[in-house]
């Protein structure tokens, strides 16, 4: 059986889900027997080099770059998995949802208690920067997502169980202890 190809990314996330991925510990040796990684921060491949079987998304979408990356994952991956609370429901970045973006920017760059030096009242507007969205979107509100693995971060056993099931085509086994939102 040929190896399945996997890609991963972190959008508006903290990389905690990726860390948890690595928490599968020595099972990673088994994993490399089952899969090969394409675009992923784990191997630092920046672009898709071939059609991918499983795309794993950490983080929701807070800016235009997230949207672009997410859409390219949808185009290049047969199956998309939302990994962790941020991908599924926006997570902590989505705490700003409901607060006008102007107010968030003002707080962050102009008026907030942690703003010590910004006498020129500069706001980040370099054309190189991604553009901020008015709110943080769960991934499945942007593109079609096939599987959801909750947690902050998701339990390593959950990631392992789900991934093995997806790779081997077996049913996912999700014991009570591994599906947690915190």
């Amino acid at each position: 059986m040929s190896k399945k190809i996997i890609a991963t990314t972190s959008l508006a996330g903290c990389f905690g889900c990726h860390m948890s991925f690595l928490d599968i510990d020595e099972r990673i040796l088994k994993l490399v027997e089952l899969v090969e990684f394409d675009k992923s921060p784990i191997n630092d491949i920046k672009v898709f080099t071939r059609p991918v079987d499983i795309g794993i998304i950490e983080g929701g979408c807070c800016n235009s770059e997230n949207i672009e990356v997410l859409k390219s994952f949808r185009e290049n991956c047969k199956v998309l998995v939302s990994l962790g609370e941020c991908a599924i429901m926006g997570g902590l970045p989505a705490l700003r949802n409901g607060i006008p973006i102007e107010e968030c920017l003002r707080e962050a760059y102009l008026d907030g208690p942690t703003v010590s030096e910004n006498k020129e009242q500069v706001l980040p507007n370099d054309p190189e920067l991604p553009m901020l969205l008015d709110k943080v979107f769960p991934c499945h509100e942007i593109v079609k997502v096939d599987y959801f693995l909750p947690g902050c971060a998701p339990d390593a056993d959950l990631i392992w169980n789900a991934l093995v099931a997806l790779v081997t085509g077996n049913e996912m086994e999700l014991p009570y202890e591994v599906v947690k939102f915190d």
Partner: protein
Amino acid sequence: MSETIEFKIDGRKIVAEEGKTIVEAAKINGVYIPTLCNFEGAKPKGCCRMCTIKVNNRFMTACTIPGAAGMEVESNSEELNDIRKGIVELLFVTGNHFCPSCEKSGNCELQALAYRYQMMVPRFPYVFPQKGIDASSPKIIKDQNRCILCQRCMKTIKDEKGRNYFAYQNRGSKLAVVLDEKMGKEMSDELAALAMENCPVGSIIYKENGFKKPIGKRKYDKRPIGNEIEA
């Protein structure tokens, strides 16, 4: 002594005292019917609809209806469990339930029910409402974004004259449970702790007492809600 009656839940024999609600009778007999707004010792109101059951093909709430002899109750069916899961999902998307940042995580009954029904993602779009937080009381924080309007605090937190600390405000989608401003200022530590304890979610937080028990060692971290009832 009141009389003992017999009825059935999903074909299983239930024996209970007459007058006990179906939820109570089920519990005594080791059958779990999920609830959220129901609270032992307080008058049931049936506002979360989690305990919806079917009797004679009609929807009813098991927390408000007393069991009756010969009754045949349908509870653990695919249809009803999907409705219950749907209600949990509905409550998640219409509030702001960011579990990772909530002090109640692990002890939260809404979260526990989501675990029990394996909610991986809600079927409804997220609303992300901005409902405000009332921290004016020196003892508690009332976070409206997490409130599921179950009335448990309204029914159980009262002063010696029987006056309510908590009450509804507005109606429909604007409905909120608010703390009486004056009474909130004079709340005792005991009542504040009790209010937090009685709140099924993290909407009432007893100030300066957070995270005493670490996440991972909490009520529903290892064992599903209802497990303690189920034989």
